[in-house]
């Protein structure tokens, strides 16, 4: 025993030095992780992203904008910077500049309200993707969950016209969230019980949601407008169930209090993941389901719960939209909406963190608003091309987010090759 005590100090020093171990075992390892480190895809993704820190998402966005700018230049010949400036102003971000005054300022305020209305929805649909991601699940079904949430909210919101306003809003919003949770929960349940892949089942559920909605509000459908029997649209949400506007003119679609719902959702998201046993379980399953199972965590249950919570965020997004500014749903809205798919880009760019999702949602909200035809000066950029530019940048972001692991790898490789070349050069000079 005493023999060991004496060795203690040296062993300590030794361990200290051996801390940052060199990869042992043969394979070349560009990431700097030991080759024997076996990790889930999510785990590798996590490590690679942390390696890039804040730089990677910012570079991703910048690169997307740069290539988008090149496209502007090539297709229209106009200066991309002018175009981007126009988008920036169109999104109302110039409202933050104190020197913008008068009518310009009023316009900016109005534009910024539109941007923030979209940001609200994008935060919620982004969180819907991000939460599932933390459990190792890819929720592509945000759109379907959004639709069922919107459908239920519009139904409740357009009924019970005499109800207490606060109660009416709460019931409609919560019902929308629960409906989204149940909808996503179907995919979670199938994943947990029979192992059906959530990507497939959520996509299928999207189509079911769309066609159920079309059926409900289509001509002759059970929830179709009571007075306009020839229009495939729902009844209007009654005044009392509409979310109050706190900034801007309610008649001109000012910013509604759903904005605070989104901020609250961000806080809830962070709290669940970092301060609850539920979040611990979800993350453990996401990083390493095998270790979670060994630890006594019920993996199937967490798959279900993670999907349901994801769906609740998306369902809430749908509810907030119809209660906040849409007030009615047409079959066209249901078939044409893509806002929840943008949520995927938001979650990816936001690195599935609360703050990241908030920033990414603001970026995409600004892009969508700034390029909408009514905001962009036709002399600067053809309005009919403008929304395509948004789509283009979205696509590029998704592409680069997937590719930034490759970018990091290339950087590491470049670093090595440079060193090698230097070594070669030194070896050849006598």
């Amino acid at each position: 025993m005493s023999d060991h005590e004496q060795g203690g100090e040296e062993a300590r020093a030794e361990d200290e030095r051996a801390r940052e171990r060199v990869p042992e075992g043969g394979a070349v390892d560009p990431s700097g992780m030991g080759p024997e480190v076996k990790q889930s895809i999510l785990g590798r993704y996590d490590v690679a992203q942390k390696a890039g820190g804040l730089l990677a998402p910012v570079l991703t966005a910048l690169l997307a904008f740069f290539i988008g700018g090149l496209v502007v230049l090539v297709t229209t010949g106009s200066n991309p910077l002018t175009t981007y400036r126009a988008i920036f102003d169109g999104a109302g971000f110039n409202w933050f500049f104190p020197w913008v005054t008068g009518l310009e300022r009023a316009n900016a305020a109005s534009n910024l309200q539109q941007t923030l209305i979209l940001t609200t929805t994008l935060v919620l649909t982004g969180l819907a993707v991000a939460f599932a991601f933390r459990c190792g699940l890819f929720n592509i079904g945000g759109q379907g969950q959004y639709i069922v949430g919107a459908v239920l909210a519009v139904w409740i919101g357009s009924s019970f016209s005499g109800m207490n306003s606060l109660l009416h809003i709460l019931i409609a919003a919560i019902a929308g969230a629960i409906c989204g949770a149940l909808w996503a929960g179907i995919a979670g349940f199938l994943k947990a019980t029979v192992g059906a892949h959530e990507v497939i089942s959520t996509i299928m559920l999207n189509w079911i949601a769309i066609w159920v909605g079309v059926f409900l509000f289509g001509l002759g459908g059970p929830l179709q407008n009571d007075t306009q029997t020839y229009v495939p649209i729902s009844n209007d949400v009654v005044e009392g169930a509409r979310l109050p506007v706190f900034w801007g003119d309610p008649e001109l679609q000012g910013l509604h209090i759903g904005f605070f719902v989104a901020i609250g959702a961000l806080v809830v998201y962070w709290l669940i993941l970092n301060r609850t046993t539920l979040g611990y379980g979800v993350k453990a399953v996401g990083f390493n389901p095998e270790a979670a199972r060994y630890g006594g965590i019920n993996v199937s249950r967490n798959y279900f719960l993670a999907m349901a919570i994801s769906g609740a965020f998306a369902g809430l997004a749908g509810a907030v939209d119809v209660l906040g500014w849409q007030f009615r749903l047409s079959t066209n809205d249901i078939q044409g909406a893509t806002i929840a798919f943008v949520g995927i880009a938001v979650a990816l760019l936001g690195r599935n963190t609360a703050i990241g999702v908030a920033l990414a949602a603001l970026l995409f909200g600004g892009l969508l608003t700034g390029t909408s035809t009514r905001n962009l000066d036709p002399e600067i950029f053809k309005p009919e091309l403008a929304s395509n530019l948004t789509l283009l940048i979205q696509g590029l972001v998704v592409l680069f987010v997937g590719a930034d692991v490759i970018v990091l790898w290339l950087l590491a490789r470049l670093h090595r090759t440079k060193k090698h070349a230097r070594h070669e050069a030194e070896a050849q000079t006598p």
Partner: protein
Amino acid sequence: MADASRTVLEMRHITKRFPGTVANDDVDFDLREGEVHALLGENGAGKSTLMNILYGLYHPDEGEIVISGKPVQLGSPKAAIDAGVGMVHQHFMLIPVMTVAENIVLAEEPTHGGGFLDLSEANDRVREISERFGLAVDPKSRIEDITVGQQQRVEILKALYRNADILVLDEPTAVLTPQEAGELFEIIRGLTDQGKSIIFISHKLNEVTEVADRITVLRRGKMIETIPAEGATEQSLARLMVGREVLLRVDKSPANPTDVLLGVEDLHVFDDRGIEKVRGLSLDVRAGEIVGLAGIDGNGQTELIDAMTGLRKAASGRVSVAGEDVTGESAYGHFKSGLGHIPEDRQRRGLVLEFSIAENIALHDFRQAPDSRAGWLFPNRLIARATQLIKDFDVRGGNAQSRAGGLSGGNQQKVVLAREIDRDPKVLIAAQPTRGLDVGAIEFVHRRLVEERDEGRGILLVSLELEEILSLSDRILVIYEGEIVGEYPPTTTEEELGIAMTGGGRGQEAAA
């Protein structure tokens, strides 16, 4: 044939830096014709880095490599092969569904008729080489049908087929039974007689003294000494390797077993493919004893452990912990009834590498007070507990909030050990508790297991390392094809256990 005075390889002043560390610091290494030169060192000492430099996988920051008197630039494995270097990796790089000959000639296939594979020529050439060097394998067998020992021969043949004169064997005995290891040493002697020179990488001291002519010891990237194998003892080599005196044999008093704490009765378990891997197995572990379960990998150990810990449903049979029947309970139920489990793969199962040390330590208990209440987690309590355990178990390389994946293997294992022991289990199932650890960490884990035994816990040690089984166990059970085929005292020799492990203890047909 071999000219021992001729130096075939010289690596001079090799330095290789990685961010934050120097993997090889001015290392000199040379190899004479027809000798076995062992490279000895702990994990992370720089053995593999040095060999990866020789094999063209890494490029040294400083230093030069001279092969047969000529300075060479080894920019890729291809260049190394062309220079006559062959490497046999610890993990074989073979294609299971292809034949021995097809694997050996891969990428250098003999062809005829303008690009068609000449399989009979390939078979002939493989047979010719295997006869010349005394490496008996059938060129036409498929890799998946032959034993691990034979697969290793195929790897050696692959190198010889490419005209390697310098063979690097990376931890070659790690996957072999004692008998197979003996055969490998015969092969190595045959190769050196024919003029081949061999670099033998290992951290097993007994092997090194047996097979090597000279031994070079690396420690923390530095070359410590090159000594002749003759006259070197395991104790002296361990001191060189670790830099201090090491207890190679575990100091322990005789066991004092009392009540049965872990009982397994007539257990039958199937694997994922529906094959019965545990076939009517029964065993007991009593308080205050270490029971060693010896066996060759794949004889049902994994399925047995999974069934005993609630990670896999047993088809039939019973498992009890401290008298309580836990058959069919969940993993969580097993933990609650007093079972601790050090899993065989700490990175795949034992730890969530992306989690902090504190979060990993809470893996079983995060749902209970004091870690949480009513679903609300208290990260500060997790950190406080982890900080204490890090101190108690001497975990180096991070604090409670560092990522577990950033720790070295030994320290990761200490985290697992700390978690399992801190829960005060009655029974501890330790599967491969020292796999991949270096001498210092092995010593720690062994000492701790003996301490826990003396505390009155029952310990089931499942290991593929016979040395570990022999030095720690109070009783040894041998598992073969899912059954216990014999019980042995710790005084048994490795050879006797080796025979039992291959089914030789049971009947004549298996021994043949």
